[in-house]
């Protein structure tokens, strides 16, 4: 029986709808909360999904005009971009070695990388605090750029190792037979083929760095050097009073760079995630 295109589309949309609602709910909640007036935010008797007393931009105005939010945003971008770039380069070399080179303890190293990836960042921040102090980079963006790779590199290495394993060795070996050096084979053969995987790993790495909280809180003190995650929480919760409108506005705006990045590279991301899923 052949189903009509309309029916197929309907089935697809109905199947996807619950996931879309689930994924978009936090954004919708943040948006609605950020546009409500304070008095309405406190009114528990009404439908929380509706804005009845009119839209207000005061929470956004407060965020951009009276807090250091624009600077926090800038700092987050710098830290996330630089630390992700450094982590991807390090992880790519490590993943290539683990996936391609035959050396003693390769399997042990691979497991070790995975175990390191499982270490919670809240365990690492105490020794890293010491490191940051020894390097005299406390209270600078460098303290985050240097320490973020500690949890990003194992994660990206783990992702890239799996991806590189899905690329046939024959292509690379042919290049080596034709006189290519190992590094040239990596650059000319492996990297172009691994692009979707690298982009996917980069996106995940960027998201990790963007959302990191505990290092950003403990290593940075100056308000103008804070990242979004620490700045919003530290400055918009005062004692037992939560500035929900501005908190939600800050969270919404802060989520946009990640949304934009994923949208830009959606095609690579999908092919990166599904590589090796189907064997030909």
């Amino acid at each position, binding site marked *: 029986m052949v189903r009509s295109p309309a029916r197929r589309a309907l089935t697809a949309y109905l199947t996807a709808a619950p996931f879309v609602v689930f994924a978009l709910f936090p954004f919708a909640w943040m948006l609605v909360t950020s546009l409500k007036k*304070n*008095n309405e935010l*406190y*009114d*528990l*008797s009404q439908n929380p999904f509706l804005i009845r007393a009119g839209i207000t931009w005061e929470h956004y105005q407060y965020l951009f005009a009276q807090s250091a939010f624009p600077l926090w945003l*800038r*700092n987050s*971008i*710098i830290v996330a*971009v*630089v630390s992700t770039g450094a982590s991807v380069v390090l992880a790519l070399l490590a993943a290539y070695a683990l996936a391609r080179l035959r050396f003693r303890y390769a399997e042990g190293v691979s497991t070790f990388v995975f175990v390191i990836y499982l270490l919670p960042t809240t365990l690492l*921040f*105490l*020794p890293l*605090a*010491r490191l*940051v*102090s020894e390097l*005299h*980079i*406390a209270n*600078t*963006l*460098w303290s985050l*750029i240097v320490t973020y790779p500690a949890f990003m590199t194992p994660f990206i290495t783990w992702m890239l190792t799996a991806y590189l394993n899905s690329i046939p060795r024959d292509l690379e070996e042919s290049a080596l037979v034709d006189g290519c050096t190992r590094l040239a084979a990596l650059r000319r053969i492996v990297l172009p083929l691994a692009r979707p995987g690298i982009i996917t790993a980069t996106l995940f790495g960027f998201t990790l760095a963007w959302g990191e909280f*505990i290092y950003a*809180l*403990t*290593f940075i*003190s*100056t*308000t103008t050097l804070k990242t979004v995650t620490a700045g919003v*929480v*530290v*400055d918009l*919760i*005062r*004692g*037992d*009073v*939560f500035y929900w409108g501005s908190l939600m506005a800050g969270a919404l705006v802060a989520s946009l760079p990640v949304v934009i990045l994923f949208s*830009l590279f959606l095609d690579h991301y999908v092919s990166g995630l599904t590589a090796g899923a189907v064997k030909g």
Partner: protein
Amino acid sequence: MRMTRRKFITAAGGAGVAATTGLLRLPGAATAAPATIRLLSHSSYNENSDKAVAKIGEAFAAQHNAAFAGEFIDQPEVAAKLTAEEQAQAGHDIVDLQDNLPTIHKNFLVPLDDVVAEIEKEFGAFYPVAKDSGYVDGHWLSLPWLGNAELAVYRSDYFAQAGEPIPSTWNDVLRAAPKLKKIGHPVGFAISQTEDSNAALYPLLWAFGAGVTDTTGRLAIDSPATNAALDFVRALAAQMDPAVYSWDDGGNNKDILSGHGSYTINAPSIYLRARREKMAFAAAIRQAQPPAGPRGRFFYVDIHGWGIMKFGSNIGLAKQLLRSMYSAESQKLFLTLGQGYDMPVLPRFDANPPYAADPQLRPELNYMPSAHLAAYPAGPDARAEKAYQTFIIPNMFARAAQGASNKDAIAFAVKALTDLGYSAK
């Protein structure tokens, strides 16, 4: 012109490099810049309290050819920052230490006996509860700075509607609770893992004659008085909104400020915010002393004091700054900007504080002499601070109120407190 992905990335990258220039310079060698006194504090609900500290710090720095950098962050984050700095042996010069935290951080703190001696010589002795916070093992390890009261906050119009007088005792609260629930405005305080819950339940426990320990510090939670307190909270919680088991510190604020709740235990932030934001029902929000129990009325207070870290690079200057915080001018500035949210810890400045003119803040007068920290009735104790920080008492009450027997709830508390080092012997 169509913006391709490649063009977008190139443009964004160019803008990023431009924005980054200068920001990522590695820190160079130390120059002859003036010394910076760095202070870490919790951020007060009342932003002006932080501004007062910053003003005092900046004025001092200007007189001493130094700079002042105050960092005010949410209270729960202070602990993480402090721990990281102690590991790194570097960080702020002056830190905010709440309640019995000096007992936990004592190995990293510079004794302030000389500073306190000078202040007490000029202005008289600190309140005993302030000494309970700052005085550890024979030394002043933090200079007491302020106290935050925990008052009964209620809606006078709802009590009138329910035909109930304003509660003076916990039994009054229990009698009024069903009527207030019936008119849609239940009483409520946090029975959850949050500071407000500690602040409500410790004095309730004391008001029933119970306590974590006896006066000598021996474990005494397993007592008939604790059983009575558990029975009482079980009965009262049945009249509350079940959300009280998941409230954070903002839970009761929101409950009252939304117009839903009728009665809670809190610092004056609810009252002050309703007044500041000119909420329609602001005039109906009133404050009173916390209710009394069978054994009397007990006050809980949060004391905040200043400690100086041994690893700080400006210990001498930091001590001078702390000394300058206790002048008539500094105290007047602090208490005026504090708006009654912060109470003085020296009786000298508590005689006629600026907020005394407000009838709703008058319950704070004579509050400090009767107030206690979590270690009460014993002296300052690191175990008491750990019990407070891990919410053992709220968890015990939450278990009882949600169905556990008194025996099980108390057994839980005894086990948790024993794990912290308490003993009945």
